[in-house]
């Protein structure tokens, strides 16, 4: 799980658990203070203007477009028409179900990430090297990961070549929707667990070592310590990892789907974000794509707020 997602995930990661106010600002006499305020404002201005123009404004514009029938040049106001069509659209329903299928990747990613992070935490010889290796897929483009898996499971790919060694006929992995989804899920797990284990590892290092020491003195074995100390202590990070993965599954699969299956066969592997793309560039009405995008935005917004709330609650504990 990579790149644009890479940085945006980093964003969440750092956004969530911090919450400090500005501190250590110099106090100085009136006129200087006034000048400083102006300088500070001017320094922030270019960044804020760009962000508002190319992130905030487009969101508002997406809302507008979703209430219209448009080809991008002429806008006809149609109230909720696009939304009504969307909710009755069997393709949209199918695509939503597809997205739910992709969620299978999450328990797999988390399970492997927990195992890997707990083992890394033992700090056996070479653990730093392993950490970098596990992280490796995260620096690769979705295009690279997707095509690599598509290749490996293609008709002439490594997997079929290996099966051929045992005289098994080549399998067409991408002609069946569910089989194709499981290959994409495999790609997601392969590329995703490394970063998640890094997050969990950071959670582990935050546990007070004295707790482990005390448990060890009391004679708690390795498994007992894992179950009663390690896992309960990282449940906050686990929850966080879970939610960013859900968000990612609904917003970050475009690249995988685009290069691995192009949404097919039929719409069997299409995700919501991929459908937005399809509607944007192969439909005469951008409004329907925008309505879908707005729904996605609201859905992700709710998830993000939930996450923020959960973290606040737990911080107050």
């Amino acid at each position, binding site marked *: 799980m990579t790149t*644009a997602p*890479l*940085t*945006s995930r*980093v*964003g*969440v*990661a750092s*956004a969530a658990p911090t919450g400090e106010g*500005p501190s*250590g*600002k*110099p106090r100085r006499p009136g006129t200087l203070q006034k000048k400083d305020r102006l300088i500070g404002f001017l*320094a*922030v201005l270019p*960044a804020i203007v760009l962000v508002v123009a*190319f*992130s905030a404004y*487009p969101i508002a514009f*997406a809302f507008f477009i979703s209430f219209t029938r448009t080809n*991008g040049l002429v806008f006809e106001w149609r109230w909720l028409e696009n939304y009504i069509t969307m909710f009755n659209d069997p393709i949209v329903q199918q695509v939503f179900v597809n997205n739910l299928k992709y969620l299978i990747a999450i328990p797999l990613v988390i399970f*492997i990430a927990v195992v890997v992070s707990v*083992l890394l935490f*033992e*700090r056996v010889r*070479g*653990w730093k090297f*392993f*950490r970098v*290796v596990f*992280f*490796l*897929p995260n*620096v*690769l483009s*979705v295009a*690279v990961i997707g*095509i690599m898996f598509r*290749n*490996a499971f293609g008709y*002439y790919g*490594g997997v079929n070549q290996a099966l051929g060694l045992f005289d098994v006929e080549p399998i067409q992995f991408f002609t069946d929707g569910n089989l194709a989804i499981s290959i994409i899920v495999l790609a997601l797990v*392969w590329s995703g667990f490394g*970063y998640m284990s*890094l997050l969990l590892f*950071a959670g582990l*290092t935050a546990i007070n*070592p004295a707790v*482990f020491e005390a448990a060890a003195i009391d004679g708690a074995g390795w498994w007992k310590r894992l179950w009663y100390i390690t896992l309960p202590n990282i449940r906050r*990070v686990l929850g966080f990892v879970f939610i960013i993965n859900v968000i990612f599954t609904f*917003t970050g699969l475009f690249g995988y789907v685009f*290069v691995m299956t192009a949404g097919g066969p039929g719409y069997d592997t299409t995700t919501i*974000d991929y459908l*937005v*793309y399809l509607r*944007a560039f192969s439909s005469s009405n951008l409004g329907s794509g925008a309505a879908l995008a707005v729904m*996605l*935005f609201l859905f*992700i917004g709710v998830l*993000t707020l939930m996450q923020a709330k959960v973290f606040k609650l737990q911080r107050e504990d």
Partner: protein
Amino acid sequence: MAEEAVISKRITSGRANVPIFLVLAVVATSIVYPLYFVIITSLRPNTDYLKDSFGLPGVWTFDNYVRLIEVYGVGQAFLNSLYVAVVTIVLVLILATLAGYALAKYPVPGAKYFTSIFVSLMLVPGAVLIIPTYVMLARLGLVGNYWGLILVYVSGALPFAVFFLSLSFRGIPVEVIEAARIDGAGFFRTLWSIIIPMGSSGIATLAVLQFLGVWNELLWALILIPEESMKLLTPTLASIGTRFLTDQPLVSAGLFITAVVPLLLLIFASKYIMQGLQVGVSR
């Protein structure tokens, strides 16, 4: 860190580490082997691949790379990607350093609102933005123009970049800046001679992360640059990957060309990458 290591060593001492090492090694192999397979495959002709895919190549050749660069424009795409990535990073670093410094150390009016704008726009999914942004850029005549793409990348990167840098600049002691200001140094002077040198590790981390982000990005590069000769590397790779299903060595060479820059960065800048990804998580 050192103390923790000692303690955990004490806890695990007496326990054989071999099983743990083996499990980690198996997982690591599952990551490394596919990449190894891609690299080896890219260095052999297709006939050789189909004869024996898993052994070492009977014939070693750079032919796949040469063909990609000479016939399919991958070399040009590589340069295009490099250009866009470098321009984007320079702009992000300049704008984010200015804003980050101001938010960390200056009494910016409305700082709370600015920060919350940045934080809340950190996570807007690309799918939400493609339609409105495309319409907007088309009207401005910026579709099919690198500047449209660069503007989208820069504005997409800024929220995290500003947040990240203001966080890391906050750690620089006020006394140092105050002392310089008493000597008459202004905003730019303190920025240049104190903030940038002292915050260089954070800035380098950001540069590496942003480079990876732009280099690997697919969606915007795909829709905003329709012109064949201007295409960036990832869309070029995607179209080669779907066109040459029967020629695995050729596609593998394309995969390696796209992956090699990030891999080199991971090898030589892993410190910065790991650092950047753990910001805030450990709190």
